[in-house]
C-alpha cells in the first residue's frame, strides 16, 4: 500500500461534527467576503474610482458655476456623492452573485445542510464592508479638498449608519437581479441603466429649483433625493426625524418586499 493510499483511507469515514447554527453559517460566508477583499483588493478600485472622478469633476469643473465657488459646491455635493457611491456599489454585489451562480458555486452551497439564507447574509457582510470602505475613502478625499461636516463626528457616524441602511436596502434589488440573470455583465448594464436616471434626476448634483416643474415633481419624491437630503442634514446639521424617516422608507420597503422574494426565488428554483 502506498502512502497515498494510506492518506486516502485516513480521509474516509470522517464523521460529521455537530451541526452549526444558522448564525455560524452566516459568519462563515462573511469570512469569505473578507477573504475576497484580501485576494482581490482591486475590486475597491472599481468601487471608488467613479465617485472620486465625480467628486473632482463636479467640484472643480462645475462647482464654481453651480454654487458660486468650488468649496461651497463641495459642501453641498459630498453627502450626495456618498449616496451615489453606495447605490452604485450594490450593482457589483449583484454581479458577484450572478458570477457565483454561473460557476456552480451555489450548487455546492445548496447541496450542503446549511441555513438557506446564509450565503446572502455573507453577501450583505461584504456589501456593508464595501460601503464603509468606499464611503470612508470618499469622505477622506472630501476632507482633504476642504469639506467640513458641521455636525461633527457624531453627525458623520450617524450619516454612515444611514448609508449602510441605504446600501442594505438597495442591495436586495441587485441580489434579486443577480438570482434571475445568468450573465454578470447584463446585471451591470441593466443595473446602471436603471440607476443612472434615478441618480441624476435627484438633488445629488444640483438644487432642483431650476428644473422644469414636471421633473421637479419626480425629483422631490425620488428616494435618492430623500436619502441625500437626510445625509446633508446629518452631516451638515439640522436633520429632522421626518427627513431620516423618509430616507429610510425605500430601504425598509425594499427589504420587506425583496428579502422574502429572494428566499422564494432561491428555494423554488430547486
Amino acid at each position, binding site marked *: 500500500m502506498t502512502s*497515498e*493510499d494510506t*492518506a*486516502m*483511507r*485516513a*480521509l*474516509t*469515514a*470522517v*464523521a*460529521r*461534527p*455537530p*451541526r*452549526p447554527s444558522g448564525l*455560524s*453559517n452566516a459568519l*462563515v460566508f462573511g*469570512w*469569505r467576503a473578507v*477573504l*475576497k477583499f484580501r*485576494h*482581490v483588493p482591486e475590486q475597491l478600485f472599481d468601487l471608488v474610482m467613479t465617485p472620486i472622478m465625480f467628486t473632482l469633476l463636479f467640484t472643480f469643473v462645475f462647482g464654481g458655476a453651480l454654487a458660486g465657488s468650488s468649496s461651497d459646491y463641495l459642501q453641498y455635493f459630498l453627502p450626495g456623492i456618498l449616496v451615489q457611491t453606495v447605490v452604485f456599489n450594490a450593482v457589483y454585489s449583484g454581479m458577484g452573485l450572478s458570477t*457565483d451562480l454561473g*460557476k*456552480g*458555486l*451555489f*450548487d*455546492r*452551497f*445548496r*447541496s*450542503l*445542510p*446549511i441555513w438557506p439564507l*446564509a450565503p446572502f447574509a455573507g453577501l450583505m457582510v461584504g456589501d456593508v464592508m464595501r460601503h464603509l470602505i468606499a464611503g470612508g475613502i470618499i469622505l477622506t478625499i472630501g476632507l482633504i479638498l476642504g469639506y467640513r461636516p458641521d455636525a461633527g463626528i457624531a453627525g458623520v457616524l450617524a450619516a454612515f449608519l444611514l448609508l449602510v441602511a441605504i446600501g442594505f436596502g438597495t442591495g436586495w434589488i441587485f441580489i434579486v437581479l443577480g438570482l434571475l440573470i445568468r450573465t454578470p455583465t447584463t446585471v451591470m448594464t441593466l443595473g446602471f441603466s436603471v440607476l443612472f436616471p434615478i441618480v441624476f434626476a435627484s438633488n445629488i448634483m444640483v438644487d432642483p429649483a431650476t428644473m422644469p416643474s414636471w421633473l421637479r415633481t419626480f425629483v422631490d419624491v425620488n428616494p435618492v433625493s430623500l436619502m441625500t437630503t437626510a445625509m446633508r442634514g446629518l452631516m451638515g446639521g439640522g436633520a429632522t426625524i421626518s427627513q431620516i424617516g423618509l430616507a429610510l422608507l425605500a430601504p425598509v420597503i425594499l427589504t420587506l418586499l425583496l428579502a422574502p422574494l429572494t428566499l422564494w426565488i432561491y428555494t423554488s428554483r*430547486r
Partner: protein
Amino acid sequence: MHANRDSAATESAMAMAVSARGLVKRFGELTAVAGIDLDVPRGMIFAILGPNGAGKTTLMRMLATLTAPDAGNATVMGHDLVAEADEVRGAIAMTGQFASLDEDLTGRENLMLLARLWGFRGVEAKRRADDLLAAFDLAHAAQKQVKDYSGGMRRRLDIAASLIVTPGVLFLDEPTTGLDPKARQDVWRMIRQLADSGVTILLTTQYLDEADQLAARIAVIDRGRKIAEGTSRELKAQTGSGSLRVALYDPSQLDEAARLLEARLGHAPQPNVEGGELSVTASSAKEANAAVADLLAAGIELSDFTMGQPSLDSVFFALTGHAAEPSGEPTP
C-alpha cells in the same frame, strides 16, 4: 400481508444508497427526465451513461436535492428526497460539471470554508483542509488562488471539497470532461480508491470507456429515459456477438484486408478513424482465427489483433439507433 410487503420494500430501499421510482422533470415544453427508476446498491460505482442532453445532469441534480422532481419519488441513503431533503444533504456530496469553487480564494481557503460550514472549527477546519490537500496531491498549491490551478488540479480540489465529511453517496457529474489523459487517469484512480473505502459513487459520463473502466453497473439514458441497465458485460452481450480488431503494419493494404475479412466473416469491417485498423463483427473465435489466417496467407502483416466483446460504442448504437455523439442539444 400488505404491511409485510411494504416493510419489505422499505427494507430493500434501505439497502440501496439510491432508490428512485418514476422520476420526472420538465422544463416548460421540454421533458428532461421522463420517468426514471434507479437502484444503486451501497458501496458501488454506478455510471449513468448517455449523450449530451439525455437528462443525466438533471437526474443527478434531482437526487442531490438541487432540483425538485415534478413526479416520482426517491430515497437517498434511506431518506426521502423531498420530505427529508436536509437529511439527504447531510448524507451526500456532489461535484458538479462546472467546478464549484471560489476562484479568488486559495485551495486551502476553499476547503476551510466548506469545513466550517459543516461545523469544523478553527484549527480543526484547517487540519481537515490540509489532510484533503495532501491526499489529493495538492499540498504544494494550498496557498495558490484557484484561478491559477490547472484543469486537473481544479477537478481534484472539487472532488476533495465533496469529502469534507465522508458522504454516503458521492455524486460526480461528468468527472473527467475536459481533462487531459493524465489528469483523467488521476481522477479515475481517486474514484476507485474512494469506492474501495466504501463510498457509494454515482457518476454521469458521456464517455463509454469511462463507464466501462470504472462502473460495476451502468444505466444507459437517452432522451430522458433509461433504455438499458446492467454490467458492462451484460450490456455488451446485448449486441449478441464478438468483435475482431486488426491493426495493419502497412495501411495501404487496408482495402484488401477489408475485402478478405468481409469474405470470411460476412460483415463489412469498419475502418478506425486513425487508419490502419479494422473492426469487424465475428460470431465465434474460431471464425475470427480463420479470418486472421486469411490475412496472413495473403501477405498482410498485422502489428496487432484482438478478439473481444463489442465496444460500448456499438452497444449504444444498437440500443438507441444513433451514435453516442454529443447531440448539440443544450443540457438543461
